[in-house]
């Protein structure tokens, strides 16, 4: 029988450590596939966050550095400015990127650093146990917003829209991981963002709407339904900027 699909070589056969139903594993898979398809495994350095995103280090067969909380874009800047032949990408969650690391992402984007940032938005602090994130929806419960987030805690921050106010970024897209169709679109976006770095085009920002069944206190299936009904409604999917499309 012909083998038409198998695990990417870039994805190690190791325990990922993610909770059942968590979509981080899907990101690890599509990132590994993109790295394999582009043939850049030995040149790749993943700059990883603090939080669940860091667990990708246990399965991704590339070099990696886990940055301090929120600082991945700064670490990636120092790395890419000096190791210019390497392929660098940053991977951050919503607490990491939109809360403690807001300055670093804004300024890396504003400088148009030549690397992509993958931003995983699941509206919650996962690893620390379900605290409110800057992207938590109004009404969504968290361990630090037990009755649900109210405007007193601020409104969900829309990072694609915020980064779209800057001149330098070349590619900004928000994707979702709630369905196979959306996952394929996300993979395509990631590949395009990675190509932008390889072609020296500059800064790309891919937001990936994700889930957290454990801290949302939902079954995996229910969490997907919640994403479709609430998360995507708050965070519209789509391309927010594509300067590269104009060039092509």
């Amino acid at each position, binding site marked *: 029988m012909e083998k038409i699909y198998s695990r990417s070589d870039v994805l190690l056969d190791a325990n990922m450590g993610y909770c059942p139903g968590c979509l981080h594993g899907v990101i690890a898979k599509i990132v590994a596939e993109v790295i394999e398809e582009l043939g850049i495994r030995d040149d790749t350095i993943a700059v990883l966050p603090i939080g669940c995103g860091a667990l990708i280090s246990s399965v991704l067969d590339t070099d990696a550095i886990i*940055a301090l909380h929120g600082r991945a874009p*700064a670490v990636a800047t*120092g790395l890419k400015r*000096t190791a210019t032949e390497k392929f660098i990408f940053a991977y951050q969650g919503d607490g990491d990127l939109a809360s403690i690391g807001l300055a670093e992402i804004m*300024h890396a984007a504003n400088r148009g650093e030549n690397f992509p940032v993958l931003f995983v938005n699941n509206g919650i602090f996962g690893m620390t146990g379900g605290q409110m994130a800057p992207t938590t929806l109004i009404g969504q419960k968290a361990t630090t917003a037990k009755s649900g987030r109210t405007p007193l805690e601020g409104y969900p921050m829309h990072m694609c829209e915020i980064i779209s106010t800057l001149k330098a970024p070349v590619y900004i897209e928000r994707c979702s991981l709630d369905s196979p169709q959306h996952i394929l679109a996300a993979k395509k976006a990631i590949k395009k963002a990675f190509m932008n770095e390889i072609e020296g085009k500059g800064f790309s920002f891919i937001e990936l709407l994700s889930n957290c069944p454990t801290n949302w206190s939902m079954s995996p299936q229910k969490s997907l339904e919640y994403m479709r009904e609430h998360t995507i409604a708050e965070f519209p999917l789509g391309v927010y900027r594509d300067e590269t499309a104009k060039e092509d």
Partner: protein
Amino acid sequence: MSKLFMKGNEAIAEAAVRAGCRFFAGYPITPQNEIPEYLSKRLPEVGGAFVQGESELASINMVIGAAFGGTRAMTSSSGPGLSLKSEGLSTLAAAGFPAVVVNVMRGGPGTGSISGAQMDYLQATKGGGHGGFKLLVFAPSTVQEAVDLVYEAFDKSWEYMNPCLILADGFIGSIMEPVELPPFKEAKRQEFPVYTTRFFTDKPGRRMCATMIVNEAEQEQWNRVQAQRYERIAQNEVRAEEYMLDDAEYVIAAYGTSARVAKSAVRMLREKGIKAGLIRPITLWPFPYQCFKKLNEKQVKDILCLELSIPPQLIEDIKIGIEGRIPITAYGRSAGMIFTAEEVTEQVEKLVGKNK
């Protein structure tokens, strides 16, 4: 070799370039601004990269990135900035990464005055950050010594795979003096094996750095490796200058700019027939305790701990070295106010009077 007349901060920056530094990230803060200003022009000339970081935090984290890539990298700041960088400093040490950090000290806790002072001794030497890490700390007292120590700090940092701190002060940074610059070292990116890789993958060809090691036994193992590194530095790198100490009855202990004033005071006191001497720590960590341990309590009547700091900070290490055998008196100015040699002489004369 010819001498140049250079301002301390610019000389520090040029010494770094000659030591092979090819990446600098920093945030504006007085009194060190000439370092980033100089390097913003100088690094691109030699194929290096300069980034004005959006913050002290970003700057030290950019250095972490450059260091991971194998580039000789540096950042500089002053006290408040060093506080902000301390998480990054802890991480550089925890990762076992080489880098050089310069603190051009200013006056006071909080924001503090922007003039030169020596207010960050304890921060520099007692692990100014979490996790009990150590930095190899050099304290220059002249512009020439600042050049020499910065030049050497890069090698030391790579020898031990540990960050080095240059603890200068606003006076050293601002003063202009003749300096002889060292030759250019070859600036080659050099990837090094990352120790923590072994905890994350069984592929030795990969480089994986994480300073969060979830497995307790592995974290403990790594902590032991780091402690051994600190032990090696403590054994090999202690440096101090001893001046007119053989027959000294009154010993001034001072580092950096304070030690320059102290040296003049020692000479003035000798002219007056007072047997004064000086111990000048050059490495603040590891501290030259031995210089103090070997002082003979039957000969030395008093020690004056002289520092541009109020309250005194250096005195904590002198106490450890003296073990209560000899009285220690602290005299300090701070916030940009500086003692004259005459003022220091008077302080020692007071001690002489007390002992009569």
